[in-house]
């Protein structure tokens, strides 16, 4: 069911919600969190809602979409309530903010948060420079950004590193989980040797490749090199060099990975790039600070050959990256 409330107020929205609930006869709700999606009023609204609806099947939640419309317009709030089949297992409130109100999304969100439940903020597109200081970010225990969706992904990731606060996380990090799991499992097999050096190869603008390099650096404390591969391919390989032979996970086509390690036959493993809804569901699974992510972010500065935006490192990287 979809209910449109043009040019409205938050108390009218709250009223309408109670109304819908009474008419539906639902006595108790099993919502476990409020997910606030902050985006511009564009096609991204529907894409994000779709992902949130999928994720809500695992985490029933109230979804508040703060869609910032034209700032030059007069102040107005248009609301739309979606429940039932139109909202997955959640209830979705799309709040379109126009005029000066567009900069005060927090004032609209506060009255609509579920009582006593965790709040998660998600910026599917461009995130604020310091998410934890953002008025909407401050309302949330957990703040999800997506460096890959920014116009300059590597710069965005660098900004995450500088502005990190407990509760921050980035979808570039959740996209990595299958890679990290495979590499970690590979080290569970003999020979149990120390890793001497690490090389991570991926598209120059791929923030996940930087994070993978950072994570390996933070765990292994050995030299880690970041190499670039043609754009668009995501991460293409990770190689952990050891005396007895390297553990190598290679994914040239973005779909199937090949795992090579000494004493084992070469094995292929499905390793497709994860869709946003899967990453989002993973993010909603845990709400405490992610210390491993923090360590990976901080260790990125110790990775060799990484473009951090500084002109010098770009030049040296291009020299190495030349075929």
């Amino acid at each position: 069911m979809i209910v449109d409330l043009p040019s409205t107020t938050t108390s009218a929205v709250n009223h309408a919600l109670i109304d819908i609930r009474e008419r539906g006869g639902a006595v108790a709700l099993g919502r476990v969190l409020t997910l606030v999606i902050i985006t511009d009023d564009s096609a991204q609204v529907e894409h994000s809602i779709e992902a949130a609806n999928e994720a809500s099947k695992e985490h029933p939640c109230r979804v508040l979409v703060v869609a910032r419309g034209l700032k030059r317009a007069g102040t107005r709030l248009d609301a739309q309530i979606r429940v039932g089949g139109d909202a997955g297992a959640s209830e979705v409130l799309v709040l379109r903010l126009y005029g000066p109100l567009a900069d005060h999304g927090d004032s609209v969100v506060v009255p609509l948060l579920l009582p006593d439940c965790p709040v998660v903020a998600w910026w599917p597109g461009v995130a604020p420079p310091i998410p934890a200081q953002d008025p909407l970010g401050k309302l949330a225990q957990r703040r999800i950004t997506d460096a890959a969706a920014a116009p300059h992904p590597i710069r965005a990731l660098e900004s995450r590193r500088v502005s990190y606060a407990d509760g921050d996380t980035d979808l570039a990090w959740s996209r990595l989980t299958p890679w990290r799991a495979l590499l970690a499992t590979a080290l569970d097999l003999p020979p149990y040797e120390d890793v001497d050096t690490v090389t991570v190869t991926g598209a120059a603008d791929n923030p996940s490749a930087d994070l993978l390099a950072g994570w390996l650096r933070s765990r292994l404390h050995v030299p880690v090199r970041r190499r670039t591969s043609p754009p668009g391919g995501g991460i293409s390989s990770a190689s952990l060099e050891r005396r007895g032979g390297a553990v190598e996970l290679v994914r040239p086509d973005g779909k199937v990975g090949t795992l090579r390690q000494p004493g084992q036959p070469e094995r292929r493993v499905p390793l497709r790039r994860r869709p946003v809804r899967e990453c989002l569901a993973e993010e909603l699974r845990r709400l405490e600070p992610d210390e491993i992510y923090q360590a990976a972010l901080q260790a990125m500065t110790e990775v060799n050959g990484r473009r951090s935006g500084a002109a010098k490192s770009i030049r040296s990287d291009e020299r190495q990256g030349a075929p």
Partner: protein
Amino acid sequence: MSAPHRANPLLDSRDKRLPRIAGPCGVVVFGVTGDLSRKKLMPAIYDLANRGLLPPGFALVGFARRDWADENFAELVHDAVREHARTPFREEVWTRLSEGIRFVPGSFDDDGAFDDLASVISELDQEQGTGGNHAFYLSIPPAMFPVVLKQLARTGLATHDGDQWRRVVIEKPFGHDLRSARELNDIVSSVFDEESVFRIDHYLGKETVQNILALRFANQLYEPIWNSNYVDHVQITMAEDIGLAGRAGYYDGIGAARDVIQNHLLQLLALTAMEEPLSFSPESLRGEKIKVLSATKLVEPLDETTARGQYTAGWQGGTKVVGVLQESGFRQDSPTETFAAITLSVDNRRWAGVPFFLRTGKRLGRRVTEVAVIFKRAPHLPFEKTTTAELGQNALVIRIQPDEGVTIRFGSKVPGTAMEVRDVTMDFRYGMAFTESSPEAYERLLLDVLLGEPSLFPVNAEVELSWGILDPVLEHWAKQNGPEPYPAGTWGPPSADRMIAKTGRVWRRP
């Protein structure tokens, strides 16, 4: 075990995102053409692969008396996956999985076939890198266990070197009484150590069953009232709406009590009634379950505290269905029950005087499994009698299937000017049941087998204690006339209602 020799620098207990992927290994399935194997096991293997939880190079070997090549078996798996898997079908996942699929044709008494199996397995260790780690899944009738286990021992498949593991997975029924369970266990343990034996009770893999422990031990709210001071009685129900269709031959001679009470319901009772374990380590959990099962006794006289029935023809959920005696494969004069109910007491300080009613049956009103904890009435009601005429007892119901969740029933004022209190229910359902990411019970259990994580598998002591509880009932029933008929689509025979009414209580309508 997948435990590394030294700490893996990439692992960290704070890193909760990382799923535990099984180490290199393979599964050998005996009885691949069976229903369970096609509907549950193979889809579960695919779903695990799809979630990235199986090791690269995972191997699946089928063994059956069919004149098949690897491709034929792969086709069977493919169809089973296509039809029954819960996660979407992805070509790249299937291609990887199918690379590790092998088939060995032969019968269980054929030495040559098992020699072939041994060489296929060692080939897989080379080609796929399964590393000598294999789980043998016996999806076959227990009568076949001795010959298969003997073959595994003869070909050296049951033994392993140093780091490797060999495990055996068996399913219920674990015997048909205490004596046969012991015999079965002797046979299994003559070939595999107890740590390598995984008994699958798929109920224990369900999210809600594991949630019983979270509900009880992670909350302050329930534990203080979880005892005989506040609890009046407990009802544990597993009702099925289906009849025997197809399984009649297997079911005849086994019956509802052996099929369901001995394993599922007594395990649910154990989780509901056990004391808090020191930790969630497998030893502590099992220790507590063994303690509570040791304290569990039948309430006598059995004539009055048990009931059994057979469904007769009737209308069930809008369909006309035949009675059990008309099902093909079921003996016309069979005394096998399709409904069973028993009364138990747990003789310890926490539960003294609280009866536990367990019931299960086929062709009942609807499909439902639940644990209902019914509380005592408030000791004093400061209302007029008429005010609370409609007020029942508070209840906390843990729904296991099909609609997983928790319901609480309590009294509430009826809107209006008069003071009137009536029962209302508050219902919580965690949306886990219908999502791709919540693993199905078989998936969870199979992964635990491959990881060597035994918490969710009953040990032999639990199996034997459960039979010890049930055996007197079975013996008692064997001496009586046949079960009492009940029409399909109802909640069981009148004797079940009489049995609980004698104690001044009634069955919940689940």
